[in-house]
């Protein structure tokens, strides 16, 4: 990686991504040992700055940071105090003064990690910004796909759901394209913007057409409140048309895997029978997430500004 920050997959080259995945392999081995901790980043401080609640991502980063022997502070800013007018810049300056070396940031507004990277000395890791990106999720998904499928060349990956608002999709699309996979985006036309179509990226409004012969099915979480904004009429109708069922899964390649960034809405975007099947690698994603985040912190840790 060239920079001191991980803000966007778009900033990474194919070689950068592969280097991160290769480095993560080493950390996955560490996580299999009895002593699952290395002294690599001893004395460094990681601040998890979460303006949006996210137990999963925060815990994964926390564990990754602890396995690298850093000191971890969880700085959760409830939305209410933001509403009261506490300035993001003031929060950033406070954390800077605490001596953070890394700031892992999650925020409901796109571009906040970029803003912090201009305002702070610490290395900024984007843990999800608005409807923009979630780069470490894409990296751990790529790691999991490579682990299960061996590589990306000629691979067909379907991403299903609310593409428009999904930071997971927005990081995965460029990541998978850089690695050489073909990407299919499937969902309601209100949530699959035509602007996303491009070389190696195909849009489908029908599950039956889109899932045919794919190697990987990556489900996205449906934000239930979207229903009120009129993107689709009801959750029931959504499941009827875009829910991942065993029957639909049978259209994919026989060895296709099912991924989900969690937390799942069973019966909304995915049927339990699929979520709990042999093909689901959802828990591998969770485990791999720690190794990938260790790799990211480690690789950012030595880059001088």
């Amino acid at each position, binding site marked *: 990686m060239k920079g001191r920050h991980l803000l966007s997959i778009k900033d990474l080259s194919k070689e950068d991504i592969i280097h991160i995945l*290769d*480095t993560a392999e*080493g950390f996955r081995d560490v996580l299999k040992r009895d002593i699952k901790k290395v002294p*690599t980043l001893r004395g460094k401080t990681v601040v998890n700055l979460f303006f949006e609640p996210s137990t999963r991502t925060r815990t994964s980063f926390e564990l990754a940071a602890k396995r690298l022997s850093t000191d971890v502070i969880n700085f959760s800013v409830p939305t209410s105090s933001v509403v009261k007018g506490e300035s993001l810049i003031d929060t950033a300056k406070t954390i800077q003064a605490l001596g953070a070396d890394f700031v892992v940031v999650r925020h409901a507004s796109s571009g906040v990690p970029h803003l912090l990277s201009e305002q702070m000395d610490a290395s900024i890791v984007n843990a999800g910004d608005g409807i923009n990106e979630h780069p470490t999720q894409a990296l751990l998904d790529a790691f999991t796909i490579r682990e299960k499928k061996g590589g990306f060349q000629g691979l067909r990956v379907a991403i299903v759901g609310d593409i428009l608002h999904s930071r997971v999709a927005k990081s995965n699309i460029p990541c998978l394209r850089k690695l050489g996979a073909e990407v299919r985006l499937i969902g309601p036309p209100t949530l699959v913007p035509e602007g996303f179509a491009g070389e190696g990226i195909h849009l489908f409004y029908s599950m039956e057409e889109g899932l045919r012969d794919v190697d990987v099915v990556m489900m996205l979480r449906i934000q239930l409140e979207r229903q009120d904004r009129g993107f689709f009429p009801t959750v029931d109708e959504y499941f009827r048309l875009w829910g991942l069922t065993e029957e639909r899964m049978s259209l994919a390649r026989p060895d296709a895997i099912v991924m989900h960034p969690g937390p799942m809405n069973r019966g909304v975007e995915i049927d339990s029978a699929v979520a709990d099947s042999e093909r689901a690698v959802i828990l591998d994603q969770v485990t791999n997430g720690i190794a990938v985040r260790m790799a990211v912190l*480690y690789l950012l840790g*030595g*880059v001088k500004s």
Partner: protein
Amino acid sequence: MEKELLDKRDIDRALSRMAHEIAERNRSLEDICLIGIQRGGVHLARRLARKIKDYEGAEVPCGSLDISLYRDDINLRKEQPVVRKTEIDFDINNKTVVLVDDVLFTGRSIRAAMDALMDMGRPAKIQLAILIDRGHRELPIRADYVGKNIPTSLSEKIEVQLSEEGHPDRVVLLKEGK
């Protein structure tokens, strides 16, 4: 400017002697394992294991160790680090581990290697085998088996080139300057 210090035969002779010394010092070869430090040490450890098998008929387990995660210079590095494989698919508890590296210099890599080993188990003993000892120690570390002592100045560099990496076997001294 470079100067050849050891050629293929010199290296082979030194390794043969070291293999004999290892066998001599450790009466029961069953409790011994060789672990090479990435990258040069890994090839040397394999060569030593082969020689011990040739001379003693004993199959000594051989592994590789990456010490990147234990280094103390993470803040000083200029390039992106590459974490290489650590492959130790045998139990090191209560074993005599012979750490193998190509050049012994400041001793910091060996310190890191020992810390890494300790996180993987509790060896009974750790010994150190080195092809070239060039001096300038910064830590109280001494090799048990030495291929060759080569006094150097700090501005010089020693490079061990091995056929496993696609070079002819040789050890060269690189001098700074024009």
